[in-house]
């Protein structure tokens, strides 16, 4: 994987039509860091990731990656810059095989020459995918699909991986497996920005986290500090 790069957002406002979802959000992710964005449903977490990967244009604020202004680029150019987004609900191509899904992930011209090498890397990381390489992605279990979605994102050779609710809609046992996947990717030294509702789990795999509430950053800090914070414990961790 290529070296990481710094992602920096400041004063980001964005929404859908008349509905504003983000009110001046600022955050940064340093190379090699794993950062979480947690918060309740409807806090704007998914919108935030969609802004970063260009699917939604911010109406105000700046968005920089490796010093470059992202807000002026079309979404399809961002994977080429090293931004890979694993979308909510995985969004695999169910009628394509596992390997074909990986191939679409390597669509960017700069990624194509590395297809075999990265595919083999993904298969080493997730041996289960290798067993199922010729199986249609839609026929796999939720956990395997999440592996395939992460693998597909890794095929572009990202410098930062954006993960949107990787544990959503999965059985508790599978959720454990998915966070194990995230931990494995962390060990590879990849920069990760992960959005999650499962606060307890995500704080165990990230270095720092932001708490997003109704489109604003309500708190931020190291995972350890947030896990100890009485307000966070009360709202998200079921503690006292």
């Amino acid at each position, binding site marked *: 994987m290529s070296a990481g790069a710094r992602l920096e957002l400041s004063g980001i406002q964005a929404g859908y039509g008349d509905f504003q979802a983000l009110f001046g959000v600022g955050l940064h992710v340093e190379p090699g860091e794993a950062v979480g964005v947690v918060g309740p449903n409807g806090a704007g977490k998914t919108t935030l990731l969609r802004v970063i990967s260009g699917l939604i244009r911010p109406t105000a604020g700046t968005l920089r990656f490796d010093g470059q202004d992202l807000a002026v680029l079309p979404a399809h150019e*961002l994977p080429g810059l090293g931004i890979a987004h694993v979308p909510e609900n995985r969004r695999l191509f169910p009628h394509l095989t596992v390997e074909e899904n990986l191939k679409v992930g390597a669509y960017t011209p700069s990624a194509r020459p590395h297809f075999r090498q990265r595919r083999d890397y993904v298969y080493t990381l997730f041996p289960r995918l290798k067993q199922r390489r010729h199986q249609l992605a839609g026929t796999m279990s939720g956990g395997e699909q999440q592996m395939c979605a992460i693998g597909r994102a890794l095929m572009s050779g990202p410098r930062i991986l954006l993960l949107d609710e990787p544990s959503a809609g999965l059985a508790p046992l599978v959720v454990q497996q998915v966070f194990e996947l995230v931990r494995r990717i962390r060990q590879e030294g990849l920069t990760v920005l992960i959005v999650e509702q499962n606060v307890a789990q995500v704080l165990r795999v990230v270095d720092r986290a932001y708490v997003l509430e109704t489109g604003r950053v309500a708190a931020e800090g190291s995972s350890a500090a947030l896990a100890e914070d009485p307000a966070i414990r009360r709202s998200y961790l079921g503690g006292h």
Partner: protein
Amino acid sequence: MDPFLLEALLNGVLLGGVFALPVLGLNLIFGVVDVIWLCYAELVMVGMYAVWFLYTQAGWPLFLAFAICLPLVALLGILLHLLVVRPLLSAPPINQVLATGGVLFVLQGAATLVFSTEFRSLGVEMPPMELGEVFVSGTKLAAFVAALVGAAVLWAFLKFTYVGTAIRAIARDREVMPLMGVDPRRIYLIASAAGGALAGLAACLLVVQLDVHPFVGLSFGPITFMICVMGGLGNMLGGFLAAFLMGLIVSVGGFYGSTDLSYVVAFLFFILVMFFRPQGLFTR
């Protein structure tokens, strides 16, 4: 088996091969761009005129005329996309159908103005070939082989290339494609060119079997749309199989009755399919 029935069956298969090309083209466009090119048969008609003109009027060798026809109609497909379809991508489907339907009349009218309504023939016929007990037209056999080669090339393109894989992916999930680094607008353009090229190939295969006139699209256009719907609109394999089924119905129906009757049978069969399997015969 009655050699005449065998001949009818064989001709049905050969006819199916020729139906298959425009069916694949229409399904490709519909699956990727989500727009129906109502004027598809008229793109084929333009290609037929191009071959006829280059061969009989300009005196070009036939194969050179064929070689020009493919990229020419591919270019027409690109123009159709850029000028008519792209501006209407977010318009209601009925507007898109009406717009491409308008192009149908424009092309028919233009062909009438330029070439008049006279029937034009290439005057090329390959000798019939004897296969066991039956004779088949060499021209039809050659057209069939060329259609299969065209379908195989399309299949390989969709199966093995990055762009082809993206085309199959985009047919299912448009919105996620930019996250893969895919510019949907570029994929639409490539699919339109490929759909046009298939119409161009179909033109080459039809112009040796049919006289060309401005309304020649009517003789294979409606049945092409019917086959697409029968196989499941956007379903390439379903359309391919349905093309052969329709070819057999038309040909064998013609053997037992008349060609006109066989088309009546084919359309009745289509209506029955729509009653009982509106999603298409080969849709799972």
